[in-house]
């Protein structure tokens, strides 16, 4: 399941879809065991952000590859919604010539050519877009990186696991595209926002929280996930202490009795539904009306808007201090 932690909620779902196909092939046991034991990835290496906008530049990507970009890229294909958001935030929107069908932000992406979905990017469609830079990710795309390079494009795999990783991804994207100063400004702005949120909850008692990713089975985000980090930064404590994404015991949730119960939009749309679940009406979060629905794209997509996600969580944990 740790691979999921590196990607967006929607990608996770699609992997689960493939896993479902495997269920039909009676291979569920194997997949689930792999999913439960894989460790979280290490954060990406910090890169200097003061380099000049001259080419060639060399960066190390999240697949531990050393990549040299010979000239300033003019045609960029993004294979992950988070990468697309970074590119647009750096003002590179008009250079983006291909995105995935999962991309939904900013609104302009709907007009950009779709080169397949996140899990199975279409090599031919990518080639047709004639990119000189491809912003890929690892995980499901690890196998196709070499194939993408064969198209003659430079390929960078970005796969942030935490906030620092997001900053680094932005900075490396800036360096690779000659938007170094924009990247620095974006990261600085994010850090200011994050500092403001953490400052507003500073000194408060950490609020115990649980975040639901799926209902049945009950899936949640454990330690080492971006969500876990956001909860901590927002002045909370995740009641889940197991690493990565896990199917979690409902009765353990009842025992943990989190003060705030959060659920992603993809899992639950109506907070009132929670009280209908066995034993959950006894949860203090349910009794006290502290069930909050989170936008998956903000809280689990490792892009610039993760700050908004942090703010959502902080507002859920400390409504008296932080407003949405």
């Amino acid at each position, binding site marked *: 399941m740790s691979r999921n932690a590196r990607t967006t909620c929607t990608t996770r779902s*699609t992997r689960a879809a493939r896993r479902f196909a495997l269920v039909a092939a009676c291979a569920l046991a194997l997949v689930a065991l792999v999913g439960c034991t894989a460790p979280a990835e290490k954060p990406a290496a910090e890169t200097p952000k003061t380099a000049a906008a001259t080419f060639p530049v060399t960066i190390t990507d999240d697949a531990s590859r050393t990549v040299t970009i010979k000239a300033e890229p003019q045609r960029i294909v993004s294979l992950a919604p988070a990468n697309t958001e970074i590119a647009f935030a750096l003002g590179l929107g008009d250079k983006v010539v291909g995105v995935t069908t999962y991309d939904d932000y900013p609104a302009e992406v709907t007009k950009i050519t779709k080169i397949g979905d996140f899990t199975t990017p279409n090599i031919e469609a990518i080639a047709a877009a004639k990119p000189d830079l491809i912003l890929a990710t690892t995980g499901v795309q690890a196998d196709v990186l070499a194939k993408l390079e064969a198209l003659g494009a430079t390929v960078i795999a970005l796969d942030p696991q935490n906030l620092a990783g997001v900053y680094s991804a932005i900075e490396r994207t800036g360096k690779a595209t000659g938007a170094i100063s924009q990247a620095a400004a974006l990261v600085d702005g994010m850090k200011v926002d994050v500092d403001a949120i953490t400052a507003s909850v500073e000194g408060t008692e950490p609020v115990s929280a649980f975040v639901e990713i799926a209902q049945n089975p009950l899936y949640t985000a454990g330690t080492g996930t971006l969500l876990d980090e956001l909860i901590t930064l927002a002045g909370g404590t995740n009641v889940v202490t197991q690493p990565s994404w896990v199917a979690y*015991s409902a009765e353990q949730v009842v025992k943990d009795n989190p003060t705030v119960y959060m659920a992603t939009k993809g899992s639950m749309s109506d907070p009132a539904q929670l009280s209908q679940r066995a034993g959950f009406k006894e949860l203090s979060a349910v009794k006290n009306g502290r069930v909050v629905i989170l936008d998956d794209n903000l809280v689990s997509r490792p892009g610039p808007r993760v700050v908004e996600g942090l703010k959502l969580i902080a507002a859920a944990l400390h409504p008296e201090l932080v407003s949405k």
Partner: protein
Amino acid sequence: MSRTRRHGSSVVAFTALSLGLVGAMVAGVALGAVSVAPGEVLGALLRAVTGTAGGLSDTLVVGVRLPRVVMAALVGAALAGAGALYQALFRNPLADPYILGVSSGAGLGAMIAFVATAGATVLRFGAVPLAAFAGAMLTMLLVVRLASTRGRLDPTSLLLAGVALSYTLAAVTSFLMVVSREQMSAIVYWMMGGFSQASWPYIGMIAPMFVLGAILPLLSTRELNLMLLGDERAGHLGLSVERFKLLMLASASLMTAAAVAVAGLIGFVGLMVPHMARIVLGPDHRRLLPASLIAGAIVLVLADLVARTIIAPIEIPVGIVTAVLGGPFFIWLLVRGERR
């Protein structure tokens, strides 16, 4: 039918099964990710009866575990009952809701209803099981039709058609998940199967389906026994075979749909439980069918207990547990069949 010498005594077997079910359910409510002292379990149950429940252990035992155990028992009984029926009607020891593609059909039906009723919680509550039943029944009829040549049902074709169709349905399900991305993750997790969503409203939803699906077969065990002789002989002895089959297939599909609608795809229970019952009690459906229902309940209650406690508080899908038990059993069955 009386038993032959090879088979065990009815009285002993049904006493053991009843005690087993009670034991499994007691274990199911007594054990869990959070440990509750035996005295507290008993106290919680007593307080539930007297209506004075309140504390954490009350919530855990009565609120969380009891509905889950009851639901696992219902789903297990439904799947095993459906499996026993399919095996009787097709005279095929490998028939079960999963292999015949009926589970996948119910799954697809349920999923379509799931997507179509997004956001309408109340509507979804009724539509999902109904659509699951429609999907199960249509799949069943299609599989039977595909496997029949000139009114004769070839056992190998039946299994092949079932497997082929279940792959096709799984593919359609995957496709629908891709195109309805908003609902995707919810569907995917739901299809993986399990009881973490167990609740009294869900039990209230599937219990009538289960009872409706089980009652007719339980009252038709003599006719089911005639089916052992083959369609033609059953007809010679006065059974309206086509009509009876349709009724029984509808009953089996109803039970399958009840199980799939709340617990997703759980394999092997429908296959292995009737076999175990047959080995112990013989082929007489007056014993086989009720025994399968009870044993199915026991197996899933225990499998779910394992699924939620073995690496608690992390839960593993109950399908893994049944597959780990069922896979080797299936192989043993095949090997044993070859040796005969």
